[in-house]
């Protein structure tokens, strides 16, 4: 379980997050949608302290942290409870696929090499890339790199998985393989906070959808409510813009 309370963040005097409160229950898949520049990435980065919020609190099942006076130890603890899947994958370039998955298990969780290796094989199997285990990131396609990075995130058994537009950097034909992996993980009961522009995917996978605009949560609810029955003007405008775009590109 994750609860964010009143998260505020500004960059150079511009308020990017204007007091966000958000709850993700265990096993939930919560999807953040909203226009570009709205603060979705920043919010996700605040959860594992890649960005330091100016104000706010975060709460896990047995851990709580006030961002305005967080100590080093607490930050490490917070980061070990969550794992980020980046838009640009950011696999460790000096490690092979399986070493990427093993790394945090050995370094952070102090598992033995053997144990980490076996775990990692299993995870690579889950994302369908066992046969690429000894490849370096530079030898893998974007879709493959992203699937490895998902395995790397799963490896630390985080309480919550954070996905920041995991398919936005991919060529269209590689999007499906990554979404399939995420879908499969969601089915195993993982707790997920996801940012995506893949609206139909969001609709099918989410237990809750959160629409953000200008650093605020405008509306949140089950996918059917947000996508089909929203009565908020800003939500409808955003989604209309989306389907219009979609129709435009498909009619070409």
């Amino acid at each position, binding site marked *: 379980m994750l609860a964010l309370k009143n998260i505020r963040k500004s960059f150079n005097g511009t308020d990017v997050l204007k007091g966000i409160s958000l709850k993700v229950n265990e096993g939930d898949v919560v999807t953040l949608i909203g226009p570009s520049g709205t603060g979705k990435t920043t919010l996700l980065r605040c959860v594992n302290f890649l960005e330091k919020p100016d104000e706010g609190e975060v709460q896990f099942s047995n851990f709580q942290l006030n961002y305005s006076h967080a100590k080093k130890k607490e930050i490490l603890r917070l980061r070990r409870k969550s794992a980020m899947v980046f838009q640009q994958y950011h696999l460790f370039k000096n490690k092979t696929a399986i070493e990427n998955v093993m*790394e945090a298990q050995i370094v952070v969780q102090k598992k033995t090499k053997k144990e980490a290796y076996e775990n990692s094989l299993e995870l690579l199997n889950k994302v369908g890339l066992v046969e690429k285990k000894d490849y370096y990131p*530079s030898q893998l396609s974007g879709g493959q790199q992203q699937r490895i990075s998902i395995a790397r995130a799963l490896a630390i058994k985080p309480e919550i998985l954070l996905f920041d537009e995991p398919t936005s950097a991919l060529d269209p034909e590689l999007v499906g393989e990554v979404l399939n992996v995420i879908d499969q993980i969601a089915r195993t009961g993982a707790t997920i906070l996801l940012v995506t522009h893949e609206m139909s995917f969001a609709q099918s996978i989410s237990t809750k959808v959160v629409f953000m605009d200008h650093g605020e949560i405008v509306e949140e609810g089950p996918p059917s409510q947000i996508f089909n029955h929203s009565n908020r003007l800003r939500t409808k405008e955003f989604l209309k813009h989306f389907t219009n775009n979609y129709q435009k590109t498909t009619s070409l």
Partner: protein
Amino acid sequence: MDIAYFFKILPHFISALPITLIVIFFSQLFGLLLSIAVTYIQIKSIKVLTPLAHLYISFVRSTPILLQLLLIYYGLPVLLSLFGININFWSKTAFSIVTLVLHNGGFLSEVLRPAYLAVEQGQHEAADSLGFTSFQKLRRIIIPQLLPIALPGLGNGLIYLIHDTSILFVIGVVDVMGVASNLVSSSYGTDQIEVYLAVAFVYWAVTYLSDKGVKRLEKITERYHLENGLKS
């Protein structure tokens, strides 16, 4: 050109070689450590120390090494005596090492800093997000990636350092070059060519061997396949 004389004096240089090698070893070792500290100060933008680091690097890079040697040899004892520290008993070799460490530290930090910055921010963030401590991140992820970038520059630094030892005879250090200068003055300048050719051979050999060592390290770090491969 007297070949027999050339071979006769060669052992003199070999026996002075340990001094030269000691100077090179300690100057490289502590110079590298100093450059790491200077790089750290600059990257972390530590208050007060960062402008001092800039000043230091600028001075070291902009003044001749010979001048730096003379300033340290004559100036450092005076400076430290103001603080009640007496270093008059130091050997000339010690002053040489201090000079070369300071010189090398400034130069090598100009190799390390760009190499550190060349490692993508995303590599830091990936390690951070998984809960690595700063030290774990440096040791396991960042240093292995910056090494192949920095090694050619560090290797060049080592060659410059080896060559820079050839000025230490000016303050009276009896290293390879010191022996040469003594031989030349005792023979009233009649055998300069043989003497300096012999010195050249010694420097050549030392540089060749250290260069081989660096190349070997480069080979080891090459296996990371850091170059960009397939695109998304």
